[in-house]
């Protein structure tokens, strides 16, 4: 019997049309644009200057602050400039521009395919290695992994959950990774177990990916300490709190972090990146990116260097089809529309989704009929219709009482609303306003 989380959730058509496209290496671009803000937290500080020659894997930016991550060069060549460039939302971000010349890697990186299973490092060595290699969570939030693997004093991890749910429609990068790099994933999981001092880990996979479940099941005998947990398909299963509920049955209380219930959740992509960092000394500078869309003649899963311009990717897959109306970075539920095609991909980019006008067109908003669909869809147990009403009036006190800060911005409410009210747009904004007020209060 597959498990799942109990509250809310929706069942969008999963549209995994690119699931059979094997991972291909994407050709190197002529120029690379490596952003210094590829993670949650403070942007990295550039340590190279124009004219420097860099190799693949060389440090370009050092972390500046506790929640920050190092940025390494995905390309070899000469640094052309270090200046602000617009990211995919148009915001200017400090970027190292590299004129790509060949593909020369640092000698310290092990580029062979042999799987290194022995983990001779101690917990603190592992965490230090992960921090050095600039590993960030690849599940979407790009939170620095080393921070997540060092629980605050007094708190102990009991569960390590590897997130292979990939509940967003269209995305298949994690799926391909599970199929094509299963052992790297399992060793990566063991490394993180060792870092946290755990004996057991769980990999949650939705049951619409039976091939991945059986592929990882083949290694059952060698990796008895890692349990594969099939999950019933439901969005947003990949949400940290939903996954914890589905796998362990524990509920993360309002305002609390997963570590408060003893859980640490890491994405499958992160597990593979951790494997590569610790065993192969390879910093995080490339990842699997799904290029998909019903209007595309061919679906792709690319191994892509972070810092490749979006327009050059689209050119490589045959240009933007005429009927394409919107390009989304990430999945259709939580992804962000790309407004600037000359922006570059980041470490955490999981997908580029091309949608037609018919698929994306917003229908005109009408009045709320109090049907309560959004309430039953909300996986956090909030009342989106009420938050929307309060948000439009700017009633921040009431919004706080209604726990607007618990919203995970999954978009279930907007998806399910029969009146086409852009609930999430309003709630996301109100949440930001309320959080700002809460943060400005003096701490007790």
């Amino acid at each position, binding site marked *: 019997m597959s498990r799942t989380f109990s509250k809310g959730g929706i069942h969008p058509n999963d549209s995994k049309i690119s699931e059979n496209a094997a991972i291909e290496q994407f050709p190197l671009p002529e120029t690379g644009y490596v952003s210094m803000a590829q993670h949650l937290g403070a942007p990295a500080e550039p340590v190279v200057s124009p004219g420097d020659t860099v190799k693949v894997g060389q440090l370009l930016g050092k972390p500046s602050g506790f929640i920050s991550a190092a940025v390494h060069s995905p390309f070899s060549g000469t640094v052309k400039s270090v200046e602000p460039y617009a990211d995919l939302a148009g915001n200017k971000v400090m970027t190292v521009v590299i004129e790509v010349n060949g593909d020369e890697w640092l000698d310290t990186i092990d580029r062979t395919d042999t799987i290194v299973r022995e983990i001779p490092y101690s917990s603190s060595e592992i965490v230090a290695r992960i921090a050095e290699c600039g590993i960030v969570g690849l599940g979407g939030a790009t939170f620095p992994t080393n921070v997540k693997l060092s629980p605050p004093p007094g708190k102990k991890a009991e569960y390590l959950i590897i997130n292979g749910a990939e509940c967003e429609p269209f995305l298949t990068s994690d799926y391909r990774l599970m199929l094509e790099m299963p052992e790297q994933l399992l060793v990566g999981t063991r490394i993180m177990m060792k870092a946290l001092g755990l004996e057991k880990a769980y990999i949650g996979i939705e049951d619409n990916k039976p091939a991945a479940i059986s592929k990882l099941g083949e290694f059952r005998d060698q990796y008895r300490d890692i349990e594969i947990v099939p999950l019933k398909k439901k969005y947003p299963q990949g949400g940290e709190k939903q996954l914890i509920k589905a796998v362990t049955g524990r509920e993360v209380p309002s305002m609390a972090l997963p570590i408060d219930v003893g859980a640490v959740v890491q994405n499958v992509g992160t597990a593979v990146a951790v494997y590569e960092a610790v065993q192969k000394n390879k910093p995080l500078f490339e990842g699997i990116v799904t290029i998909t869309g019903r209007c595309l003649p061919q679906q792709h899963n690319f191994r892509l260097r972070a810092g490749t311009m979006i327009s050059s990717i689209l050119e490589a897959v045959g240009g933007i089809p005429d009927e394409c109306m919107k390009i989304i970075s990430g999945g259709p539920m939580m992804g962000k529309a790309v407004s600037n095609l000359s922006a570059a991909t980041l470490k955490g980019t999981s997908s580029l989704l091309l949608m037609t006008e018919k698929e994306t067109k*917003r229908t005109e908003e009408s009045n709320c009929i109090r049907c309560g669909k959004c309430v039953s869809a909300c996986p956090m147990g909030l009342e989106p219709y009420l938050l929307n009403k309060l948000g439009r009036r700017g009633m921040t006190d009431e919004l706080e009482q209604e726990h607007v800060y618990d919203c995970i911005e999954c978009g279930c409410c907007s998806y399910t609303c029969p009146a086409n009210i852009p609930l999430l747009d309003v709630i996301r904004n109100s949440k930001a306003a309320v959080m700002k007020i809460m943060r400005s209060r003096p701490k007790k």
Partner: protein
Amino acid sequence: MNTIIFTVVTLSLLGLLLAVVLYFVAQKFKVEEDPRIDEVESCLPGANCGGCGYAGCRAFAESCVKAGNLDNNFCPVGGNAVMSRIAGKLGLEVKEKAPMVAVVRCSGNCDNRPKTSFYDGYSSCRIKASLYTGDTGCSFGCLSEGDCVSACSFGAIRMNPNTGLPEVDDDLCTACGACVKACPRSIIELRNKGPKNRRVYVACSSKDKGAVARKACSAACIGCRKCEKACPFGAITVENNLAYIDFNKCRLCRKCVDECPTGAIHAVNFPPKVSRPDTEAAATEGVKES
């Protein structure tokens, strides 16, 4: 019949008794309040717009009475007339303030500032600004979703559908500052209304470098400092690639308007110049747009 009489008599007696109780309670727990607060409040417009910085007109009146002077209090809606009436009631002095008006510091209309993407989200500047830098190349300019229009309690701002920019009605604007607070890009500024509503201002908020700003919008301030040099009164300063005219120093000579290579400096409500045909075009364009 008896029931009705009893009911009427009982209720009347009860009402009378409670009225007496209430009278004594009201006497006992009477809140002493300065009667001047009511007087001051009666002078105020009663819009409760918050333009003075207080929660409403009552709070403003209380503060006027409590402070004992009117140096820090000003009702922008009522203006000098209301302030002098308040001063009369309280027996205080008040300094005349020059009337202000909201000014939109952006000239990125559809021709000057081509759209680079299409926004189909919820129509709100604040939400649009939280999602991305907007549907044009400029990340400082007007987002055209009309948060200022809905913030205005006096109906003084309307969106011009042809330019996609808000327009302020000088006569209706009370300079309460609600639109200034509502604009997530801070492009609206309260400026001196000027004699006969004549004003000169930089209609741009872009802090991008000249080339970047110009690429996104042909009417952008490029920070070339020509106006700064041309100004005989030292009213213009250029900071972060953006010129700013200090309205307290500006003497409305309009030399900067002629100098500006992009037409980012607008002079409004001036009679058209006759001698120079090329600058006349720029000046009248300014009138049209603002």
